[in-house]
């Protein structure tokens, strides 16, 4: 044991310095050259930060595209999911309530067209995206609220569909914050 203690101690010190000190410093230094310089990429409106490109935020007003439900209320300083199992009765009531709320605000939508992502909470509570279907079924509501032509809104959504990686891998999606920022600019 004694024979092992000194090398162990010195190796520990060396690797704490290398792995805990130098390595993150190196990565931090390199990240100064990426968009957002390693602090996270932000989106601006009129010179003010209104959000992080990768992080979802709460949208509940009828004039905006809604984000997905969040178990943590889109608290970007405390992420998390609902951790509800698929058969829990309280959870299923919550989903039913989400469906009902959506139907009330979107009377023209048929229930069987609502995609599951719009009424279930994401894993992080900060999901920046919704499915394409999830955006399309909100078009009528927003067009009415903003007094815009539904065709114009449809074109807007389609222009904001993010294709799978290289067109071949992974799901299609729509970034809600980016879409809503453009929506606000449309009005002017």
């Amino acid at each position: 044991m004694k024979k092992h203690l000194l090398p162990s101690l010195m190796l520990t010190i060396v690797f704490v310095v290398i792995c805990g000190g130098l390595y993150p410093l190196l990565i931090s230094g390199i990240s100064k050259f990426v968009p957002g310089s390693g602090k996270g990429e932000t989106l601006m409106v009129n010179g003010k930060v209104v959000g992080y490109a990768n992080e979802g935020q709460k949208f509940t007003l009828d004039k905006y595209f809604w984000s997905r439900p969040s178990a943590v209320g889109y608290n970007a300083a405390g992420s998390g999911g609902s951790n509800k199992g698929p058969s829990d009765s309280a959870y299923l009531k919550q989903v039913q309530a989400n469906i009902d709320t959506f139907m009330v605000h979107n009377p023209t939508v048929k229930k069987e067209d609502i995609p599951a992502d719009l009424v279930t909470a994401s894993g992080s509570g900060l999901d920046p995206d919704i499915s394409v279907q999830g955006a399309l079924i909100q078009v009528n509501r927003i067009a009415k609220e903003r007094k815009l032509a539904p065709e114009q809104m449809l074109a807007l959504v389609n222009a904001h569909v993010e294709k799978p990686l290289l067109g071949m891998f992974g799901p299609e999606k729509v970034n809600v914050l980016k879409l809503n920022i453009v929506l606000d600019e449309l009005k002017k």
Partner: protein
Amino acid sequence: MNTELSGVILTFLLTVLLAYPLGMYIAKVFSGERTILDFMKPVERLIYRISGVNPSEGMDWKQFLKAMLTINLLWFVYAFFMFLFQGHLPLNPDGNPDMTPDLSFNSAVSFITNTNWQNYSGETGVTYLTQLFVITFLQFVSAATGIACLVAMFNGLKHKTTNNLGNFWQILTVTTTRILLPICIVIAVLLSFNGTPASYDGKDAFIGLQGDTVQVSRGPAAGMIAIKHLGTNGGGWYNANSAHPLENPNYFTNMLEVIAQVLIPMSLLFALGFYIKRRKFANVIFGIMTLGMLCLVIPTIITEIHGNPEIARMGISQATGAMEGKEVRFGPAASGYWSIVTTIISTGSVNSMHDSSMALSGLMQMLGMLVNGFYGGCGVGFLNYFIYIIIAVFISGLMVGRTPEFMGHKVEAREVKIAALVTLLSAFIIKGGLAIACYTLLHYSNADWAFKPSGWLNNSGFHGFSEMMYAVTSANANNGSAFAGLTGNNIFWNALLGIAIILGRYLPIIGPIAIIGLMAKKKYVPDSAGTLKVDSITFGAMTFGVILIITALSYFPPLVLGPIAEYLSMHH
């Protein structure tokens, strides 16, 4: 074809494609041949000089284990006190508090053992100092510890008769400087270019479009997220782990992270083949492990894409699959694939909340951790598989009625006894721990504790039982993923899981190293007509059979009470 499925298939193919040459490289590193990273030699020589290590001094299996355990004990003491006083130490821009003693114990144990079970939230429970100087550091060296122990086994298998399993400190050092650090730098840079933060700034705040004030946790996360996957650690920078959009910003990073976690376990198999010059042996094992993985992955992906039957009954579309606890940018296929990879590999990072997976997927995730040897964690995965091999060798020997040999060494009573004990140990820890938890919940649910057991579970019925079973299974397997609805930050769970983690880490390392040490000392028996052909497909299938039987016999009853009962109740 469906873009989600093609994404999963591409991910797996890329993993194999990268693991093969990496395996070749790793074999070269440990046999001291020339590699492209030889420019690290002066750094390594400096490390040996500072530490007073003679890298060419061999160790027998007892010395090797003593060196490993001593340094691990030291890391525990260091980590425990750092967590305990982190609130009073520098690099804490968000002003996060000290950990309680029981949480410090649990966290320290969790990170020195490559488990990364987290009973705290990354945003509020740790500081940048502990994230980097404790957690990131331990993610490197705990992975290197596992790999070093496997290399000791390689050395035992390579030589006909030997006492020398290599020098623990030397292997630990080169694993870090030649394998983990260089690859991590590449991964971390790719992550930061895709939006993962890497600067030391604290929380940010802004006013969103709807007028809500939002606080955003950030920090030097990219480096930690790289080693968290490459080292099969799994502990997240943020609470939501790799479901968090800063920790895993897009489909590309998702592929990168899930490839990174399989990379070393898989390449170590190939390295074994090159190192001991038995390529076929390694290839057959690779085949069996891949088969095992597919048996778990395929049902999981199908179930998740199919969606939640209870929600289908409400009459909405299931075109995007089961989405509770999942992120739109990954979808159900990539989330299902990840959930199995992270449970068979012992990583335990998540890109979706396993607690919200379908019942069948939950069953597959638990099976992945119960077997804990399909690829498995850095180094330890093969050590676990080796135990199954020894049992298979023993049973084969019984069938033909002669003392069996494994690679020219007799496998006798002592070795088989150790293997049997290690096998029984897992069942004992998991079912014993689960029994204590259930008993406490049933009889002391309103006990006068700081946190009452009645508040432990987030789900009712069978799924609540699954939450507890998942926790002890994850602890024993040193996995670290959770059915995270379980409230784990209280003395009961901090202590129970901490103890399960310690037993589940060190005994399954000590056992195989002891076996290989004992075997390697024996006289070499050359191959004859009666020798068991361990590199045949027949023997591979035999091992697979042993895994099936042991797992089914040990864990069928609790699995029936949890995920299987839930599945049946949903599909009545």
